[in-house]
């Protein structure tokens, strides 16, 4: 019902969506996060994603299970890429299948908001300003706290 992958390789968002169509859902919401090519500070060339092997997977799985207790869900999948990812590449896929759209929208949004606060993943940014570890955004902290 809930599946989680942490990998360097790219994913096929279409196939991940397809995998969610077999559960008789009325609504499927997917989120994909991609590497932007700029930020307020300038050009971004790439990100390097670091994780804590074992804990990252566990925490993502717990996050889906938490969503499954809070909303009526039929299936959920998360894929998070790690390692160096160039601008415009895919970073993360979240897919949620449920009977009705509100649960799917809310659960997908919840997973992303909490992922950014609770899951051991760290981004280093490479770009115009050299490289640096990305700082926590106050907006992400607030989004995580609202649930």
């Amino acid at each position: 019902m809930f599946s989680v992958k942490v990998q360097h390789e790219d994913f096929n968002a279409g196939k991940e969506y397809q995998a969610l169509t077999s559960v008789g859902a009325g609504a499927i919401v997917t989120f994909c996060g991609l590497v932007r090519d700029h930020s307020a500070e300038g050009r971004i060339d790439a990100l390097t994603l670091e994780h804590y092997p074992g804990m990252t997977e566990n925490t993502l799985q717990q996050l889906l299970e938490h969503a499954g207790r809070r909303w009526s869900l039929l299936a959920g999948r998360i894929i998070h890429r790690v390692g160096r990812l160039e601008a415009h590449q895919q970073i993360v896929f979240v897919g949620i299948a449920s009977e009705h759209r509100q649960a799917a929208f809310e659960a997908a949004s919840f997973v992303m908001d909490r992922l950014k606060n609770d899951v051991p993943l760290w981004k280093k940014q490479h770009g115009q300003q050299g490289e640096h570890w990305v700082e926590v955004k106050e907006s992400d902290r607030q989004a995580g706290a609202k649930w």
Partner: protein
Amino acid sequence: MTGNVEIKVLFFAGLREQLGLPSIQSKLQAPLTVASLQQQLASQGAPWHVMQSEHLLCAVNKEIVSPEHVVRAGDEVAFFPPVTGG
């Protein structure tokens, strides 16, 4: 439980880079809380002073814990900065 305990401590991301190493194996005096472990590590001189940051998070056996959590022999402890995935 008192006496020496063998603990593996992992570091991630910016903290790993500042310390210049991904993990250490430590013999420490038990019982020991996460807060006191962090303090002991921070008191080892440069570059360990970066362990003084109150923003650091700690996981024991891959679960986030509070500073009061008591570390036991064989535990895997990890310190890391606030997360920025997604």
